[in-house]
């Protein structure tokens, strides 16, 4: 009887250990999957916000370690993307208060601007110049508009999520998106219409 009870207890403990191990592995897998899925966009947002690739890389890493620490302490992350962006946004506001020292245009090498392969060199050059002009325009936007425009259009986040990230109301976010675009049009000037 004693032996049987001991065996049952051992089995229970072993099963519990296995379950915990499996749960830990699942957590890790989910976390790394979130990194694979969102690290690029997070890095892009941070680079655009602080204009420093190296620091953006550090902050991307810090964002993920903070997310894990939150999980480790029993927090539940239902949707990774808004959670990570909110963490990164707060990290920049709380920890990294330095102002942008470099223009956006110096950071981007137009890797992401896809010009079709059969484009002529001249067309390619014109397109790059236009991209540079748009970046300079974004640079001139006030930070309150720039962040929201980047979150909305570069990161494709809906106003509701942007509101949660920035701590603003959804209404204010929608207004700033609209005004930001209008301001950008004004900054880009009449030339914008020619290129558009």
């Amino acid at each position, binding site marked *: 009887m004693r032996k049987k009870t001991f065996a049952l207890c051992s089995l229970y403990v072993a099963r519990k*250990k296995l379950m*915990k*191990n499996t*749960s*830990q*592995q699942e*957590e*890790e897998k989910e*976390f*790394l999957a979130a*990194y*694979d899925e969102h*690290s*690029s966009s997070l*890095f*892009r947002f941070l*680079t*655009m916000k602080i204009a420093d*690739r*190296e*620091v953006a*890389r*550090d902050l*991307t*890493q810090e964002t*993920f*370690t903070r997310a*894990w*620490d939150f*999980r*480790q*302490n*029993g927090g539940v992350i239902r949707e990774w993307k808004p959670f990570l962006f909110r963490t990164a946004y707060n990290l920049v506001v709380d920890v990294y208060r330095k102002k942008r*020292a470099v223009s*956006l245009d110096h*950071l*981007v090498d*137009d*890797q*992401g*601007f*896809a010009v079709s392969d059969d484009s002529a060199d001249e067309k390619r050059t014109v397109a790059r110049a*236009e*991209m*540079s002009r*748009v*970046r300079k325009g*974004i640079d001139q936007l006030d930070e309150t508009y720039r962040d929201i*425009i*980047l979150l909305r*259009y*570069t990161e494709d986040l809906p106003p509701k999520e942007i509101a949660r990230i920035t701590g603003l109301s959804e209404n204010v976010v929608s207004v700033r998106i609209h005004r930001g*675009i209008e301001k*950008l*049009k004004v900054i*880009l000037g009449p030339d*914008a219409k020619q290129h*558009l």
Partner: protein
Amino acid sequence: MKLSNFFKKEDQEIVAKIRAATKVRMDDAARERTRALLAEYVQMRPVRGGESLPFAPISTNRFSQFFMRHSMPAFAAVLVLAVGGGTAAAAEGALPGDMLYPIKVHVNEEMRATLTVSPKAKADWQVSRAERRLEEAATLALSGKLDDATRAELDTNLNAHVKLASENKQELEDKNDISDASEVRTNINAVLIARENILDGKRTAKASGAARPEAATLMVSARALAAEAQDGGGSQGDESATKGNRKAAKARIEAAKKFLGRLDARLSPDARVQVETRLKEAAEAFSSGEVDVSEGNKVEASSHFDSALESATKIEAIVSVSTNTDVSGSVDTQSDGDGESSNSSGSGNVQLGL
């Protein structure tokens, strides 16, 4: 209708241009490196309730490859796995002399150091580690456990952190990143100034009638660095002094909070009231200083941090008198009077030393 469609189309086109113009990619090598570091990080800090990995089968081949690729983080990971994630978390509150203290300093902090990439981030972390040593010293001093051996150990560790931060600062200067290098230099000087307040033993020297030789050396090095900072501009020296007072005040306030939480039984009721009053004063002045910093009022910030430091420093005198002599009624007047003059001259020294 047609007009609205026109605007909609125009918006869509400008949106497409925003998207195209703001594409930035992390290079693949950096991305993979960060991923590997995070994979190690999550293994070192298992989710509460979960088990760490010793039970997970790891093939010898993969294990050796892992070590070859990331020797330091892997070493830290193995240590944490050996002691368990919960232990590592518990070690965070450890003080010199505690069993878990080596885990805090040699495992947790080293692990965190391996997770920093840029020289600026590395320097910032080393400065934070130096601040942690100061907070430990302040906490031990309140408990009456800061003996010479512990003080020397903390000094040595603090020196090592400052040295590493200085190396990172040099790296930033070599890369011509003057702004970050200057910020790191100010922070290093600030830590040294804070150390002068907490570790140089002015109070101890006064009580025993003899200054510690190592304290004199530290003060010389702190002043040399601070003087070096002034060569680069008086405002940088002022900033170091303000930040130094801020760091020292913060370390003392945190230490006092911990002390009140842990050892309140050792204090007489009167002394406890005095400590709480001083702590409140210090915390309020500190918080006003933070507001001034955020609003760019440098002079006011400096003055507030100085007051915070004065109030926080007085706590040590009150605790010392209360626990050593059981005198409660005379502590206020006595320590206030002495503290006022010694502290104001003390903080004066700190600033004059610049």
